[in-house]
């Protein structure tokens, strides 16, 4: 048989083995799965195998897979994967078998791990009329895989999800699967440290603001930071050691108490604050869970709500008087500004369920001729 035909048939068997796509070699990029590797260092194993067939090709094989990866902040920061096994393939013109190996690195996201490396096959191809010829192929390969279920300690999934999709798309029947189990070997020390640091920073900031008499905008900004901390705690609440005082996540009593001390400081000396500022600060406390139905200390919450509402009413009445004075003094622009502010307070009082303030604002608007009975 001509050497060119031997090479062609050998390549055909190699392609048949590749079609099996053992390991993650040549598996296409898949979609992110329904679960993700939690933060930490993971070690996984899988048995990968099955068969691929069509009218002109049959390939089968089995292999063992081992991988390890470290996850932090939702990303695979490092990792390796190694697969070793055997496979055989027959075509209408030739057949063969080979030892297969994939060696690669892991990266990507915790819910979609990316493998990149080298896929090698070493074996023999039997060609009728030409005997047996060696097969030694090494090509770049890669693919993706995702967990299907994850807990803090164990993650499971299938390495072959992408490979099967590709095989079926190419018209092959396939039984290939690669169920894996990964176990967390170590917790993410850096993640724990980062979370504790973030917690301490936010708590310190609350206390600093309480000492410095914050602006309304500073308090609003603070709630954004608290949201971010809550999100970080939520992400790690199962798998990362959260600060001892923050076991209840969004309803942390330490935060609630600190935030209420800030609120108390403001309302004890409210002269620097406009009524709109007081409402924004109060709304921020509700957002942070320090005041309102979700607060851990309902008595303290109700006390602050009452004090803020009463003080805001006093300031609202000042606004009303200023507006009435401006109208009397024929200063319509100033009066309009004050009336607009009262309207804003009125709307926010309705929203926040502050019915006494709401009535006071309504009465003020009525007195200013903004609202009249019909």
């Amino acid at each position, binding site marked *: 048989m001509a050497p060119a035909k031997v090479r062609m048939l050998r390549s055909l068997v190699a392609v048949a083995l590749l079609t099996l796509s053992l390991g993650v070699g040549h598996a296409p990029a898949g979609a992110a799965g329904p679960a993700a590797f939690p933060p930490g260092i993971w070690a996984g194993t899988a048995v990968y195998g099955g068969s691929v067939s069509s009218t002109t090709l049959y390939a089968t094989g089995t292999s063992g897979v081992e991988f390890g990866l470290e996850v932090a902040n939702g990303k695979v920061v490092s990792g390796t994967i190694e697969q070793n096994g055997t496979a055989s393939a027959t075509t209408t013109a030739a057949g063969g078998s080979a030892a297969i190996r994939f060696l690669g690195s892991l990266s990507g996201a915790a819910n979609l791990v990316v493998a990149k490396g080298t896929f090698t096959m070493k074996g023999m191809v039997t060609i009728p009329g030409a005997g047996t010829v060696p097969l030694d192929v090494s090509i770049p390969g890669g693919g993706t895989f995702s967990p299907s279920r994850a807990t803090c300690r164990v993650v499971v999934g299938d390495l072959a999800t992408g490979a099967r999709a590709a095989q079926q798309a190419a018209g092959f029947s396939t039984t290939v699967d690669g169920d894996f189990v990964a176990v967390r070997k170590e917790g993410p020390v850096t993640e724990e440290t980062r979370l504790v640091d973030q917690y301490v920073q936010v708590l310190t900031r609350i206390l600093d603001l309480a000492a410095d008499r914050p602006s309304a905008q500073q308090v609003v900004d603070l709630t954004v930071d608290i949201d971010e901390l*809550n999100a970080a705690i939520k992400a790690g609440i199962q798998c990362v050691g959260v600060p001892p005082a923050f076991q*209840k996540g969004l309803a942390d009593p330490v935060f609630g108490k600190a935030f209420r001390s800030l609120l108390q400081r403001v309302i004890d000396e409210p002269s620097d604050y406009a009524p709109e500022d007081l409402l924004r600060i109060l709304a921020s406390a509700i*957002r942070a869970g320090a005041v309102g139905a979700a607060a851990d200390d309902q008595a303290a919450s109700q006390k602050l709500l009452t004090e803020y509402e009463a003080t805001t009413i006093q300031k609202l009445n000042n606004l009303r008087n200023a507006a009435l004075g401006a109208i009397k003094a024929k200063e319509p622009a100033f009066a309009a500004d004050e009336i607009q502010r009262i309207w804003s307070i*009125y709307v926010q009082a*309705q*929203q*926040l369920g502050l019915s006494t303030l709401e*009535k006071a604002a309504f009465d003020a608007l009525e007195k200013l001729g903004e609202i009249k009975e019909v």
Partner: protein
Amino acid sequence: MRPFRRVPAIVLAAAIALAGCSGGGGREGGGKGPAQPGTSLQAPVQTKVDLLAPPVEGAGEVPEFRWNAVPRAAVYRLAVLGSDGDPIWAWEGTDTSVTLGGVPGERERGEGGPVIVEGSSWSVAAFDAKGAVVAVSVRRPVAP
């Protein structure tokens, strides 16, 4: 209930029935409770904030709130009230959606934070950069 109108021209027809405008003491006693869900917030504007989600029923305990953007809005303020009229949660920001509690995702067992209860309601008001009201929504009921 006390019919009223704004002078000179804007008649807040849909808002007339809002409870709490007709007097009452509120928190310190004598209050008439929260405004009726379904009625509009009263404001000196006719522009509405259209509320898109969650549904009135079956919203889950931790729903995502979504609404349409409003021209000239510099900030949106959202508030969620319980059946007793006390605030469950409040939020302000520039986005047109937010999850109750500010953190998306299902709550783990034992995890704290605000939750929707039967008889809850929510509303959104839009303000311009100077703090003036530019649009308000209805007070929409929501139940888990």
